[in-house]
């Protein structure tokens, strides 16, 4: 047990928590945009898997991680648009349609992997970028400022998202459409237009989240995300539909996950209990969700398709 409390291991555990939080953070920030505008996209995990395979395969073929990231963006945009078509224009039941996208992504990513790759082959990972000055701070430097660029970018999206939602006309439209689409429509706001935009943003960030996950691990396998897309949706509720809350939730999940991994590696947790330990992050997230979710009201129009009339 005492082994665990060395400085090096604590820092490494924290750093790995930050890293593990990133795919969740990206996906749940994207989902926040959709939900604030009234659209629940349950297909996040499917889009993440497709983005993960697309990113992995591109890096495998080109050797360039940035091309992999771009592939993730492209796939995300495509499936974001598809999700918007299904839920906004075709007015599908949001509790069901996203499951379809998820199952498609799960099956298709596995099929493509088996057909195009076959045996797991490692790829190159994101290069690390130490932030000059900050990375030398004792403890904190090692935890927060010795990561890859994508980690910094993901966290930079948090204040940016807050700003967009609260301080721009686009953000005001998102909030109004998620609360009272009839009122927004009566003032000439295009409800469908806003929702197409937010769902596409959500898809894009899910695609990026998937590609990031694959390139960060340097590998792809069936169901690589292990339902992280669904955790991301839960985190939006946990974070009370606010980017900062979503970030705290992602970090909590990441840290618990890193801690469990570390304890397993050090065999503090007996190997035969490790499967139970693996459930800890999910259980903690659900508990937190139950406690927090009571205090905040979800966007009133969430999951309600909008049509003008009556």
């Amino acid at each position: 047990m005492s082994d665990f409390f060395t400085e090096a291991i604590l820092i490494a555990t924290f750093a790995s928590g930050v890293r593990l939080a990133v795919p969740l953070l990206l996906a749940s920030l994207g989902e926040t945009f959709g939900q604030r505008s009234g659209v629940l996209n349950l297909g996040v995990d499917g889009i993440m898997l497709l983005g993960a395979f697309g990113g992995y395969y591109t890096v495998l073929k080109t050797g360039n991680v940035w091309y992999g990231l771009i592939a993730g963006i492209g796939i995300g945009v495509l499936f974001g648009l598809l999700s918007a078509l299904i839920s906004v224009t075709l007015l599908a039941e949001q509790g069901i349609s996203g499951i379809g996208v998820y199952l498609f992504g799960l099956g298709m990513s596995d099929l493509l992997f088996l057909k195009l790759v076959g045996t797991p082959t490692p790829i190159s990972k994101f290069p690390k970028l130490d932030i000059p000055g900050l990375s030398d701070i004792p403890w904190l430097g090692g935890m927060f400022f010795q990561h890859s660029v994508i980690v910094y970018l993901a966290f930079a999206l948090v204040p940016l998202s807050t700003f967009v939602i609260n301080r721009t006309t686009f953000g005001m439209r998102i909030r109004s459409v998620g609360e009272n689409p009839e009122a927004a429509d009566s003032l000439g706001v295009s409800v469908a237009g806003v929702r197409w935009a937010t769902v596409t943003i959500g898809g894009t960030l899910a695609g990026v989240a998937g590609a990031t996950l694959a390139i960060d691990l340097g590998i792809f396998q069936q169901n690589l995300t292990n339902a992280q897309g669904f955790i991301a949706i839960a985190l939006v509720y946990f974070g009370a539909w606010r980017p900062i809350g979503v970030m705290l939730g992602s970090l909590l999940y990441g840290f618990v996950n890193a801690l469990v991994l570390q304890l397993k590696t050090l065999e503090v947790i007996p190997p035969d209990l490790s499967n139970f330990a693996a459930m800890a992050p999910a259980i903690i997230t659900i508990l937190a969700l139950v406690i927090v979710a009571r205090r905040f009201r979800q966007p009133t129009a969430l999951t309600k398709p909008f049509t003008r009339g009556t």
Partner: protein
Amino acid sequence: MAETPMLEMRGITKRFPGVLANDNVDFDVFAGEVHTLLGENGAGKSTLMKILYGMYQADEGEILLNGESVDIPSPTVAIEHNIGMIHQHFMLVDTLTVAENVALGLPSSRGFLTDLDVVSEHIVELGEQYGLEIDPAAEVWQLAVGQKQRVEIIKALYREARLLILDEPTAVLTPQEVDQLFDTLRQLTADGRGLIFISHKLHEVLALSNRITVLRQGRVTGNTTTEGATRHSLAEMMVGREVKLAPDKPEVETGGAALQIRDLEVIGDRGNVMVDGLDLDVHAGEILGIAGVSGNGQRELAETIGGLRQSNRGSITIAGVDTTNKPPIEMRHAGLAYVPEGRMKNGSIGAFTVSENLLLIDHADDQFLSRGLYDFGAIREHCQALVEEFAVKTPTLETPVKSLSGGNIQKLILARELSGTPQVLIASQPTRGVDIGAAEYIHKRLVEQREEGTAILVISEDLDEVFALSDRIAVIYEGQIMGVVDPADATREQLGLMMAGIRPESVAD
């Protein structure tokens, strides 16, 4: 008024599947006047206004603004033509501030960033100019109903509306707030704006309008200046026959208190106290009317008496039986009949047939069963008798209730509730949104039930209704009874003050 009208709608016809909503309707508004559009629900007022506001497209006819023919395909275009609409159900985003609600949909002077400080300044200016003071930084959910309406009007003025449509704007206001609103509206017409006022409250229509157009079943059935009109002449034009605006009420000997409420406290949906230490007695053979502005605990009070909501403190006694926090079935057994305010939400099941809805309470009664199975002959007989007695217009007993009109659903609920022999009847908003004919009938039945010795509690936001029905009027404000008055002595103004929370110095009982 020889000049060109600011609005002319010519020969407007709009068909929906199976319904002719507007049939060759002509309507015009001159600058500086209030032109009222009067008619029952379903007469085609809203359709006509939605056509004007670009929410519907007319099948035939044309719209002229200041003499020029225009095409209005969407609300955005209506707004560009300086048309503003104050919707009956406020079109506000509760979680946004006043300023954000006003700015929504408009381009910002700072490009993609919001310019709420600029907007706020202008809101304050408009407020001072027209008596519409409001805090631009307040979030809308915090506002009282009257303040929300100010925001709606400011929204339209901010968009430089010259022609304002007001869809039943007084439905949710106290008499004093109505006076204030009318002052604002008169100021708006004095500035050369044109107003279209939609209402079915006849004395308000007479107080505010210059001209009145009456619609019935999609057609214009009357066109008059206010000088030539009376409440009775307008009601007749709306219904197409002579109507009684108040039922005849014979003297009835009242009995003991059949409904007793003592120190009742009820918590509302948002966790705040909605009924606050309320005491009330309703005697056998009397109608007690509860007047008040919506949201002052009426709904919670009715739901608690009906067993749909638990009380925190206090007691409710129905015909001598303590029913406090008992399940609804025990209240029914004690002799309660309950007409809830939401006729589709709590009062009936829309997808069920007329018979099924009539049987919702007595569905397990022996008279409808034969060896444990339904006896459909007995059921049909029972329901047919009720439908005929209560004049429910329905094609068959097997018609789903949701396809009936509001008035007929309300009559059906009343038929079900009065089919037993209730000791106490709670009627919440019994005629809200029903046509005058059905309202007239429902009033008649309530008065008849009073003669049978039932204690009746009528909860209504319609002061005319409260005056017409009640033997005594109790005014509710923030969950407390401000006083009980005799309708013969009370004036609308007195009630209005009580509805705003001011206790009268002398309380008649």
